């Protein structure tokens, strides 16, 4: 270690050399001064590279949107964050698609059927779908892409979502190269065999994971295949340019099998500073922009801008997760005392200035209830709270233990928990300490079965719209993301039953029943649902978020 310290010292010294050099007091230094200035003087003549693009001149209708971070990759097999998923979804069209009401609709697949046992899914593909290079899209292109995602050298992060398909794990481990459960029966028939009945499988086919990729392009260009000039796509837009630091430009695909989009193109600008993005919008340089939290109130009161405001509640919720397997929160009456002390509307108003939705249920109401939850967690009631506290064995708060409320160190979330704990203190006189944590520390604490966990903010968001993706990982016994350490045979039984059902209404009813158990047992207390708040110029129509978290741009129109 000492050697390292010395090396580091050397490094430091290198940085300081300029300052420690002796300063001569006389001499012909005029030369050195002008010498230092020369490169600077030359700068104005080095012309900046020509403008990548001035926004749609003339009659072209180009939708200019922004995202706060750059796109890392356009390869559907390896994308992980929204800033890459957004352009990938504009470029690639998967088997199925979601309509404006979040119902699965045909896309590349014109129809599908599932076997009686729920294990075999067969998709019939359209025969008129073409890649951007003119090649027809066939079932084999889907098979190739799914295999490629499972190959270890592809380094896909989302491959675990495919593990419900038989044989995926064998390919992931390198034992074989082809997923046994994916087969092209002929050019236009694709068949999947699953490891267990999974009604949620259909929802997965509407994601970029189930988009076709051209084997020819990948094999010809290797890891450079997903770049302008090389990329081959089948979606509503075609990649025109991608300047990794500044923007992506796309043109409408005139041959898109779903019909040419009504706009001529998209320009996705990378604008890291939300304030700068808002100024760009107000200056007419963007057509859509996220509203920074700090500007929410001002914009709500602005005569012009308030008319351009939109909100999309997202499938992302935050709630109080008690560790119900350990004292003190194995005590249901104590959990109820807390439930009666929390005013969720106040929380949303005070901690978020109204930028989020006050939750009524733990699961987002737009997931399966069309935005109208069938019941609500109890409204705040100080008298009931006190009464429950006494029932729990702590009359007037005597003997309450000291507990720590764990929360990710995101400022808005910490603010929210401070608001919640102050509400609990006002109602019950119980002082709960707030413990802001790094993502890594929080990941370790919240893990299922960790005995150090007492009470934390539960967080979850959906990648595709299916309630199984919500209730399964969060509330099945021993599931990694079952933060509350719930082990409830009733819930486990219902989850298993729902998985095998193919009737959506029946399935949704079962998930509603699970939510009812969550309330009856007071396993959790809902807090808030995240929402996207954004401004859209009045000449832009049909700009809407898909239910998960990203806007779908293929139906946008502009005046």
């Amino acid at each position, binding site marked *: 270690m000492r050697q390292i310290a010395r090396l580091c010292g*050397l490094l430091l010294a290198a940085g300081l050399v300029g300052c420690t050099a002796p300063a001569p007091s006389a001499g012909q230094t005029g030369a050195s001064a002008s010498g230092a200035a020369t490169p600077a003087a030359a700068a104005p003549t080095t012309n900046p590279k020509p403008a990548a693009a001035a926004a749609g001149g003339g009659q072209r209708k180009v939708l200019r949107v922004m995202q706060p971070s*750059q796109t890392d990759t356009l390869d559907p097999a390896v994308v992980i964050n929204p800033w890459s998923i957004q352009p990938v979804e504009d470029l690639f069209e998967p088997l199925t698609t979601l309509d404006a009401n979040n119902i699965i609709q045909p896309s590349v697949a014109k129809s599908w059927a599932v076997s009686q046992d729920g294990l075999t899914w067969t998709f019939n593909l359209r025969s008129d779908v073409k890649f951007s290079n003119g090649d027809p899209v066939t079932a084999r292109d889907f098979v190739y892409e799914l295999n490629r995602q499972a190959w270890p050298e592809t380094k896909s992060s989302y*491959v675990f979502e495919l593990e419900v398909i038989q044989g995926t794990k064998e390919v992931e481990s390198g034992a074989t190269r082809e997923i046994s459960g994916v087969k092209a029966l002929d050019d236009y028939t694709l068949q999947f065999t699953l490891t267990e009945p999974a009604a949620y499988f259909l929802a997965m086919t509407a994601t970029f994971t189930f988009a076709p990729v051209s084997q020819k392009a990948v094999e010809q260009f290797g890891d450079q295949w997903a770049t302008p000039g090389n990329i081959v796509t089948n979606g509503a837009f075609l990649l025109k340019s991608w300047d990794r630091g500044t923007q992506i430009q796309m043109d409408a695909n005139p041959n898109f099998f779903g019909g040419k989009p009504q706009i001529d193109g998209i320009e996705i600008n990378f604008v890291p500073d939300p304030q700068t993005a808002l100024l760009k919008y107000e200056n007419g*340089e963007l057509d859509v922009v996220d509203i920074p939290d700090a500007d929410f109130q001002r914009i709500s009161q602005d005569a012009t801008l308030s008319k351009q405001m939109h909100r999309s509640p997202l499938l992302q919720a935050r709630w109080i997760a008690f560790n119900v397997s350990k004292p003190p929160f194995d005590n249901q009456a104590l959990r109820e005392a807390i439930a009666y002390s929390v005013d969720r509307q106040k929380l949303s108003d005070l901690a978020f200035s109204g930028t989020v939705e006050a939750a009524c249920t733990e699961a987002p109401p737009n997931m399966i209830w069309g935005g109208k939850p069938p019941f609500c967690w109890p409204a705040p009631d100080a008298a009931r709270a006190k009464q429950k506290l006494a029932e729990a064995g702590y009359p007037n708060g005597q003997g309450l233990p000291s507990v720590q409320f764990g929360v990710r160190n995101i400022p808005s979330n910490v603010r929210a928990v401070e608001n919640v704990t102050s509400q609990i203190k006002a109602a019950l006189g119980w002082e709960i300490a707030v413990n802001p944590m790094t993502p890594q520390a929080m990941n370790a604490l919240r893990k299922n079965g960790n005995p150090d966990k007492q009470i934390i903010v539960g967080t979850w968001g959906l990648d595709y719209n299916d309630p199984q993706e919500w209730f399964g990982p969060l509330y099945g016994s021993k599931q990694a993301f079952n933060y509350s350490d719930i082990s409830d045979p009733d819930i486990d039984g219902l989850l298993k039953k729902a998985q095998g059902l193919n009737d959506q209404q029946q399935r949704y009813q079962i998930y509603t029943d699970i939510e009812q158990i969550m309330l009856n047992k007071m396993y959790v207390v809902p807090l808030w649902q995240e929402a996207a708040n954004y401004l859209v110029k009045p000449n832009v129509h049909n700009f809407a978020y898909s239910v998960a978290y990203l806007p779908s741009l293929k139906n946008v129109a502009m005046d």
Partner: protein
Amino acid sequence: VVQRIARRVLLLVPVLLGASVCTFLLMHAAPGTPFDGDKITPEVRANLLRQYGFDRPYPEQYVRYLGSLLRGDLGMSVKMTGEPVARIIGQRFPVSLQLGLVAALIMVAVGIPLGVLGALRQNSWVDHAALSLALLGYSLPIFVLGLLLLLWLSSGLHLLPVGGWGQPSQFIMPAFALGIGPASMIARLTRASMLEVIHQDFVRTAHAKGLPGHLVVTRHAVRNALIPVVTVIGAQVGWLVTGSFIVEYMFSIPGLGQMFVLSAENLDYPLIMGLALFYVTIVAITNIAVDAAYVLANPRLRVG
């Protein structure tokens, strides 16, 4: 002289080695891995670590890295799939360099005249005005200055586009925001140095032998007063051309500064290493260049 510079250049090798060890240790001391998504399963994470070789013992990883570095290979970015680190630097550095050089020009063109003027009219209203301006420029944080510029010039007067990169008009605000702080520092330094020089004997001699005032100032006083200033300018240029995160963030400029922060946030190991080594090299080269200029300019330093 050549020998002296050659020795300094050779010293770069241990400096870079030291920097690489420090960076390597620090980035691996940071908790987590590059693959810590909310939902990622342990098996998938283990496979990713294995594919990139991040599961090997640290000494082995380091030696492997050094080996490919000697072959001139900085590796591939983990997050920006298919992008070699060298290409990322090759694309981002010219942006920061252009912006930094314009800011350096502002620093010199504003700072030195302001300082000289202040010293020559010491304690007059000119001096006070110059000093106050310098103080304001020096104490105004970049993010305040940048936001004010955006509000006035873009939002208010609609003169300039709000950030972005590519057109000359997009240079103006960020270069000004970046250069005005260093310019204020140079102004104060030049003034102090000038005040010292104009009270020295050789300046009095120059006046006594009847040289016109403006010649005394330009030929004798300013030249000598700038010696310490040049050192600082050199160090500042090194800092300016490697990119400022705040300016690049505020004005949406695709430079190195943003990459630094992004690579650390993502724990993109190869990118962190490549950027750190590149940064050290640039700063060291700037310093060597300043020292070389010194030696050339000052005969007394050429001996020993």
